[in-house]
């Protein structure tokens, strides 16, 4: 019961966030980039519910638009990492032998580095920007999916229904897509929710370090970076964007945790 209510809470948070991202232009009270230097660093008021930043921009509107960046980074990174990991993990697990050895050593090399360190290194070389952040996160993100898929396929390869499908003349692509993939979905779904949370935090970290999304585009990480200079006079610049990241990651973690617990119980 606790799992289900946590799942419900997590899904509700995520639906609200996706809704906010889609409806941002309609619900944001001001433009996220409109400057008003006469009204800089204001605290909460009726006109600006969460105050204004150093350029007089409305913090609430920037946070609402920032949802788009986080959701975009999360979904894009997970989608591309998943596709790459699925292909590489399937080939590795299904064919085995030297192909498996080669691909898994590549995964080992990439996993030997802390993920965020590689992302920092990639964006340092590629230069800052949203596209480079997504590229960097995909380049490091696919490895965990590949390893998971490979492990599952290795186990499935020996099952009778797979031997039957092969005996009926099913080629590798057909057997993998039609017979193995449906069995991979539950663990992959869990991995995707945690992967999305990790991608959102990584994007925030990179933007906070000035290596991610560049001004004036509103991103929660870059808002926190700007807010750092005004901790003394305008702590609201730090509090609210961070809260937005935390709620998003919390929602994803709640969904991931409760799905895992529910599937574990089902497995038993």
């Amino acid at each position, binding site marked *: 019961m606790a799992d289900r209510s946590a799942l419900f809470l997590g899904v509700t948070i995520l639906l609200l966030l996706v809704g906010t991202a889609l409806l941002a232009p309609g619900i944001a009270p001001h433009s996220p980039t409109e400057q008003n230097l006469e009204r800089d660093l204001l605290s909460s008021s009726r006109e600006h519910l969460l105050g204004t930043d150093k350029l007089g921009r409305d913090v609430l509107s920037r946070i609402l638009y920032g949802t788009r960046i986080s959701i975009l980074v999360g979904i894009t990174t997970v989608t591309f990492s998943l596709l790459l990991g699925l292909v590489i993990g399937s080939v590795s697990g299904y064919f085995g032998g030297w192909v498996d050895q080669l691909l898994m050593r590549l995964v080992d*090399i990439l996993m*030997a*580095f*802390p*993920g*965020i*360190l*590689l992302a*920092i*290194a*990639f964006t*340092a*070389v*590629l*230069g800052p920007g949203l596209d480079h952040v997504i590229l960097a996160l995909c380049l490091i993100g696919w490895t965990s999916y590949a390893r998971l898929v490979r492990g599952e396929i290795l186990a499935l390869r020996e099952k009778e229904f797979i031997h039957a499908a092969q005996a009926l003349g099913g080629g590798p692509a057909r057997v993998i897509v039609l017979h193995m993939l449906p069995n991979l979905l539950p663990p992959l779904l869990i991995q995707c929710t945690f992967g999305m*949370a990790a991608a959102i*935090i990584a994007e*925030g*970290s990179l933007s*906070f*370090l*000035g*290596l991610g999304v560049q001004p004036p585009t509103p991103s929660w*990480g870059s808002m*926190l970076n700007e*807010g*750092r200079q005004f*901790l*003394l006079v305008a*702590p609201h610049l*730090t*509090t609210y*964007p*961070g*809260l937005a*990241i*935390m709620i998003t*990651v*919390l929602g994803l*973690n*709640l969904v991931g*945790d409760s799905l895992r617990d529910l599937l574990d119980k089902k497995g038993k």
Partner: protein
Amino acid sequence: MVFFLIHLVPGDPVEVMLGETASNTDKEILRHELGLDQPLGTQYFRFLTGLIFGDLGRSLYEQESVASLILARFPATLELTLAAIILALTVAFPLGIVAAIKNRSWIDRFSLLFSLLGLSMPNFWLGPLLIIVFSIEWGWLPVSGRGTLAHLLLPSATLGMAMAAILTRMIRSALLEVLHEDYIQTDRAKGLSEKKVWLKHALRNSLLSVVTIVGLQFGALLAGSIITETIFTWPGLGRLTIQAIQTRDYPLVQGCILVIAISYLLVNLITDIVYRFLDPRISYGR
């Protein structure tokens, strides 16, 4: 890997360093200075031979050897990372143990909430929040710098929070799992006190998963130190890395990333050795 990252990733480092508007002559001079005009094989060989003798090249901005710059900053990062681990263990052990003993009580629920929040709270938010509360509002602890224990508290709490959250959850679930094992039932049947059963038998067997997490998380801590050191202007390797990236000092960026990655690999190796010590059933090689 670090070498190929700098050399093979699409884009020209020289252009990134000098900007798109730089003249071709300037670009050629810098390319020659960095040795980037040599064939890739030659560059890799020079990089490897340099590495053997501890030569990581010269910093373009500081005009000093990369190795000496890193050596000067490394102790600060090590100090911060170790403090974060100690703090995480100090919080996680009592909380995890009590949560397992008092399963389904309010403290158990608190420990679950603590873990969930700790994992969802990014350190680039937690750090500034701690500064607002403990330095600005209450004036108890310094905002930045290094030197005393007071300087160490906020950065290590920021860095160690996620680890404390993971460890609390891990210790709690490992203890709850161990309690169903046969040998624990035997301990109780023998008439051992609950305290002895918990501390001497159950806890010792859950230590293996704690060591795994500490080992695996060490890399995350080293990488996380880049952000924490930036927030608290902590004079360590992480801040040096960011300064090097900001000044486009590629030899220094390469050196810093290499040292962080090697430290991470070394800790993983140590973790494997400690494993064997804690559980003699584990063997490598055969």
